[in-house]
């Protein structure tokens, strides 16, 4: 929170030159509820999510400078508390061959649909699993992004001095697999803000024979914590060092859009794979294909896999009693989207299924725009299959029905 106020103060000083720029104020009022249908939550409640929310988007645009803020105010019925949430707050500077964006910002890289290889920025998986609107899957980072556009090849460099982890389902509301249920003392240790810990992400991109091609490089940390035993009764949750080297291509092929993406996850603290606490290095890859079947009906399929390197070392050092990951973990997704009634009614179906683990996630949704400013969506998130510790299998008892209502202005 302190960080945010500092940021705000800096940005408001910088906004002096924006005097006289165009001002626009937009936003929405939203109600969003999600109800557990298989079983009450671990804390006894039945709601996975229940809130009303006001979002204000302020845009102050000059010719070269632009100030943007996206602030949410919400009332959470589960925690019974109201809070502001500074989702984005940044200053843009645009010059002929480069631009800058400083502040809290959402960055999306890579080609996956709900699958992330080179999008190394923080996510909120709890939001997705609780039936919140898709934009809440992405979390902002506090940093600086520089875009450089010298010619046919462009470049983005992101510097993040403040680490932001991804958000995972809350154990009070979600039934989750816990490898150490007896351990009550959990201490979280985030990478401190220092020059050494400053994250760096680079994307170089351009057109290659009609394909949008990107090369990626990241040096930072895993955003999912690892558990390290601290004492017989306590563990430390920490974020191991990670580098990612990746590539992606997207273009027209076979009467549709073909996407290819791959990344090498270099687990810098466990390169030989012998540390059971730190994830092994992996190669992740994705093949996606999207096609319009007929007017307003689109189908998209993805195949995604994570291949674990040094598997022998992993197997050899895995403590007894802990579930063993597969060498090759696979996931297949299908998305169908049908628009009806002049694109005011949207029926969508999304599913993940793992051929290796056997678990699945299903997310059907109906969304209707009553007017240009009012829409509602209702859907379900259903989990199951696999083992008690697999990605979606552990959420077997967390099926929920959700509703989203929004008035946009």
């Amino acid at each position: 929170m302190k960080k945010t106020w500092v940021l705000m103060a800096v940005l408001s000083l910088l906004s002096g030159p924006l005097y006289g720029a165009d001002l626009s104020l937009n936003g929405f009022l939203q109600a969003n509820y999600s109800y557990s249908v298989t079983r009450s939550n671990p804390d006894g409640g039945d709601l996975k999510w229940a809130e009303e929310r006001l979002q204000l988007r302020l845009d102050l645009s000059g010719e070269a400078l632009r100030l943007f803020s996206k602030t949410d105010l919400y009332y959470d019925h589960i925690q019974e508390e109201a809070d502001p949430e500074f989702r984005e707050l940044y200053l843009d500077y645009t010059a002929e061959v480069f631009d800058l964006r400083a502040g809290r910002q959402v960055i999306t890289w890579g080609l996956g649909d709900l699958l992330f290889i080179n999008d190394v920025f923080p996510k909120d998986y709890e939001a997705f699993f609780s039936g919140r609107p898709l934009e809440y899957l992405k979390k902002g980072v506090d940093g600086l992004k520089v875009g450089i556009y010298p010619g046919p090849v462009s470049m983005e460099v992101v510097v993040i001095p403040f680490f932001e982890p991804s958000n995972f389902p809350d154990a009070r509301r979600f039934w989750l697999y816990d490898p150490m249920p007896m351990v009550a003392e959990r201490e979280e240790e985030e990478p401190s803000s220092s020059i050494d810990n400053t994250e760096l992400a680079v994307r170089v991109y351009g057109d290659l024979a009609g394909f949008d091609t990107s090369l990626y490089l990241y040096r930072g940390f895993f955003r999912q914590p690892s558990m390290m035993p601290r004492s017989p009764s306590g563990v430390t949750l920490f974020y191991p060092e990670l580098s990612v080297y990746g590539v992606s291509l997207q273009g027209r092929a076979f009467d549709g859009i073909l996407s290819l993406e791959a990344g090498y996850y270099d687990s810098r603290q466990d390169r030989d794979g012998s540390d059971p606490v730190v994830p092994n290095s992996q190669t992740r890859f994705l093949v996606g294909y999207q096609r319009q079947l007929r007017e307003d009906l689109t189908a998209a399929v993805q195949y995604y896999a994570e291949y674990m390197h040094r598997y022998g070392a992993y197997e050899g050092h895995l403590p007894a009693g802990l579930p063993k990951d597969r060498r090759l973990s696979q996931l297949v997704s299908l998305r169908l989207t049908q628009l009806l009634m002049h694109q005011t009614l949207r029926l969508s179906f999304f599913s993940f299924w793992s051929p290796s683990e056997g678990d699945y996630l299903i997310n059907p949704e109906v969304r209707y725009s009553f007017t240009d400013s009012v829409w509602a969506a209702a859907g379900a998130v259903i989990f199951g299959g696999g083992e008690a510790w697999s990605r979606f299998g552990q959420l077997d008892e967390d099926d929920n029905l959700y509703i989203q209502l929004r008035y946009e202005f």
Partner: protein
Amino acid sequence: MVYNPLQRKQIEEVKMSRFAVVLLVMLLPLQASAVTAKDIMKRSQAAFLYPGRDFKARVVMKLIDKSGRERIRELTMLRKNYGAPGGEQKYFIYFFRPADVKGMTFMVYKYPEKDDDRWLYVPAIDMVRRIAARDKRSSFVGSDFTYEDISGRDIEDDNHELLREEPLDGRDCFVIRSTPKGEDGDYLYRLSWIEKGSFLPLKEEYYDLKGQLHRVFTADEVKEIEGFPTVTERTMRNVRSGHRTEVRFVTVDYDIGIKDSLFSERFLRRPPKKWIR
């Protein structure tokens, strides 16, 4: 087989006359309609979809259902031509309304003989995506206009035939029937009333595969802007559903010097204020 010189002569005469008929059939429509009809459509395409080196318009679309309920789409459209009329074009579209798509940008590279490249930028999650664009006959943002209605259809995709010349609301027009050559169309043919002076289409009727009138386009207001006759108000009416879309160009500018670099991921993510305003 008995040789009969008379018979042979008769056969040759028949062959000759058949040849002549075939020749006539081939030549007649070519001379009288096909070449000129295609020529008219080419000039119409140039006048309607390719005027200027580039173009910018602030566009308000009203989607009106048969009970009169309106939905508004407001956008800025920028277009730049590459090569002669009928050739490649690039489009850049920025949405102002409705509120849930404000700030979205959409980019199309249109090629005459292959599928478009289309990209969409979703600001809420800072995401650029390619969009599958196989079907140019799909509705544009839910309106009665298709992508093809907005960016045009290849002249070579249809056979064009000049049916007649007649006045429409006091303006002299060519009436042309265009019939899709392939199976790709969702209509049997369309009739176009092309004004003789400006070569703008003043009216188009689309007949569905059963030959029933399906959609009607009308140019409701034509103004000369910076030397280019421009359809500033138009309507596409779906006769079957009673739904219609009225489009008004609030502002129009030609030859404003749009740079090639505008049509890039950089500006899709950060649309320059001076171009979208």
